[in-house]
């Protein structure tokens, strides 16, 4: 297999990792105003992703860096061409990122509501725009002979692009709702389950529609299979959610995202950024790539360090596997024994703390 192919796949893997992981972060943020009835609810929701959101976001940084290193012409044309869309994404990521740290430091209602808005918009905007961006990458954009983008922001907001955006927005929301049903307890968990079912009603047609549109316009035999599988797995995920099988449902939406990204990248191959102006102006894995030497060096680095990253990120999820319960601070007499794994115990209202062992 050529190194350019290896790196095309690796970049697809990095974006897959990003969407599967940050996807539920976005979903939780989007659901914050809807599922969070009071401050305790909202804090609970935020704390489900609290330990992991930053590590999840690094998949984006690495995907960007890998694109720069392996396909500099793709990185250059894509980032300069999609300038305003990326600016909006960056603003969203910035305000969301600081919100997690700043939000609960002040008790004033207006302060917290303000940051909650930042979390919502900082999640919804990128969730929408990543889909718009990837749809346009597959569809192709006006590029001239020097591979320079000659469109503007509106060029990206074409029907197919918008459909892609709605697909990712709703997929991430569903993914986030199922994640919440896995990570919360009591009434919030019940609401998360209902939200998953409700969002499925919107997600399934939009995602299926987007996949169908992709295959009709840019599909090939291999990706017809991944697209069909994505739709099937999505339906299975929804079915599992309906049955209350939250773990299976989450695996389902995660695998759906994997298959969606595989479909898009499979449709894209061997281009990396097709030109709608003239096929000859398209960026491909061959004309956009770095030298063989650079790709070789990067392959060694990736081969050694990606498993290490997966291992310790996996460990993080295991450390924080318990559900997050919401409850206010209790005086010393009523609190259960605090220990390594968090306060244990059978407990009723007396021992509420974060990351308690899961309830029934």
């Amino acid at each position, binding site marked *: 297999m050529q190194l350019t192919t290896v790196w095309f796949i690796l970049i697809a893997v990095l974006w897959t990792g990003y969407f599967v992981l940050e996807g539920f972060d976005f979903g939780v943020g989007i659901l914050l105003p809807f599922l969070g009835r009071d401050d305790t609810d909202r804090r*609970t929701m*935020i*704390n489900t992703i*609290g330990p992991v*959101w*930053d*590590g999840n976001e*690094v998949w984006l*940084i*690495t995907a*960007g*860096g890998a694109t*720069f290193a392996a*396909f*500099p*012409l793709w*990185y*250059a*044309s894509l*980032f*300069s061409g999609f*300038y*305003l869309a*990326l600016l909006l994404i*960056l603003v969203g990521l*910035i305000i969301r990122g*600081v919100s997690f*740290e*700043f939000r*609960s*430091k*002040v008790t004033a209602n207006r302060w917290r509501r303000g940051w909650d808005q930042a979390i919502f918009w900082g999640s919804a905007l990128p969730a929408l725009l990543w889909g718009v961006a990837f749809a346009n990458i597959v569809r192709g954009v006006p590029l001239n002979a020097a591979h*320079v*983008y000659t469109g503007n922001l509106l060029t990206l907001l074409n029907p197919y692009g918008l459909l892609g955006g709605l697909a990712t927005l709703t997929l991430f929301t569903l993914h986030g709702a199922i994640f919440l049903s896995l990570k919360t307890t009591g009434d919030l968990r019940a609401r998360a389950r209902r939200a998953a079912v409700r969002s499925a009603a919107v997600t399934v047609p939009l995602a299926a529609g987007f996949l169908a549109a992709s295959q009709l316009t840019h599909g090939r035999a291999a990706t017809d299979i991944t697209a069909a599988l994505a739709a099937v797995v999505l339906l299975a995920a929804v079915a599992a959610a309906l049955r209350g099988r939250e773990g299976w449902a989450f695996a389902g939406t995660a695998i759906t995202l994997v298959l969606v990204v595989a479909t898009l990248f499979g449709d894209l191959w061997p281009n990396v950024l097709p030109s709608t102006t003239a096929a000859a102006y398209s960026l491909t894995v061959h004309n956009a790539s*770095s*030298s063989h*030497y650079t790709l070789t060096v*990067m392959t060694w*680095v990736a081969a050694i*360090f990606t498993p290490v*990253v997966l291992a310790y990120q996996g460990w*993080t999820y295991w*450390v*924080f596997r318990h559900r997050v319960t*919401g*409850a*206010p*601070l*209790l005086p*010393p007499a009523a*609190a259960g*024994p*605090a*220990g*390594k794994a*968090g*306060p244990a115990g059978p407990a009723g209202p007396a021992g*509420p*703390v*974060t990351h308690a062992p899961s309830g029934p």
Partner: protein
Amino acid sequence: MSVLDLARWQFGITTVYHFIFVPLTLGLSLMVAGLQTAWLIKKNPDYLRLTKFFGALFLINFAVGVVTGIVQEFQFGMNWSAYSRFVGDVFGAPLAMEGLLAFFAESTFLGLWIFGWGRLSPRVHLATIWIAAIGSNLSAYFILAANSWMQHPVGYRINPVTHRAQLTSIMAVLTNSTVVAALPHVFFAGLVTAGVFIVAASAWHLARRRDTELFRRAIRLGLVVTLVAGIATAVTGDLQARLMDSQQPMKMAAAEALYNTSSPASFSLFTVGSLNGNEQLWSVRVPYLLSLIATLDARGTVQGINNVQRAYAKKYGPGDYKPYIPVTYWSFRLMIGFGTLAALLALAGLWLTRRRRIPRSRWFYRAAIAAVVAPYLANTMGWIFTEMGRQPWTVFGVLQTSQSVSPGVAAGTVLTSMVVFTLLYAGLAVIAGWLMIRHIRSGPPPAQSATPGAGEPVPAFTY
């Protein structure tokens, strides 16, 4: 304004801003890890209180550092796509490595540290903050390797067919003498920043005689770190400058406003030049001193701006190869000045707090708090110096800044992003600063509740 000017302003604003928060992250992460280590070893609850107190400040700062860092990676592609196309084969590699080796570790393990109190065993929990701190500093290494390649390109060739730079040796890039000199300088500057920060926060409480034993310990720690790291920053800076004399003679000539090659060369204490920077109007100088500093020989030859310009015009073709002299000259001096000020104040502070003394003078505390700006100014001046001094080059001797800007992006678009970032960043700085001051005022957690132990109220939420 042209696209080029706007793109340069934006890059300058966003980079300076990012580097307001980064040095504190670099230094304070290590200090917090050290404090937690001291607690684990000595079991003195004061160390835990300090860990949590400064840890919370570290996290407020870290949040802004992270979000402004994402912009940096994107900005190369957004505003400097011609540069990215040309150098990506070489420059992209350290950036990708930074993500895979440093950022993942830093972000993942910091999450484990924030949420892991009482959940992870004390030793494992301690390891998480150490890994996060090392990850941050490792990240600095990769960024500096990338920047150092711009200052002194090595391990590459220009592909005659594609006319793009092509990597020929990754080891040459990662062991570039420029990064070997730059890394310790930035590392110690981070510790100076953290040291002064700890001094300022401690001074606030000592002035009000609150928690005096705790903050006396803390202020001594901050003072020692500032002094030792300050000296190390100066030494590494001197080594770096001498390296730059051979690698970028124009930058160093501009730093000293030395217009003509001289042997011996006098050192400028203070020079006033024409507004365009092209000539000296008035200067106070110390004879022989520049030769001594630059060449370690009182009669050594130091190259001058005009001579280097003539040589470059011959080598690279007609053009203006001088950076903007006034900015280069003053940023260099202000960097050294503010850095030295921090170190001197630390020395004075150590004397005034010797043998467990808690100074009575209000001016001591005012100075200690006001001094917090010194390393920030030094850090900013340092980056302005090294980047502005490299102009007109993005990659020294290979690619000029005017050839680097994105061809397809309109001026209005860049103006939009520049305004958005500037306003957003300004807002974040005010908020972060306010949160930090508020936290400093509220003081460290009481000895009891700092300890995750049985029978104590357990906080319901971490975030």
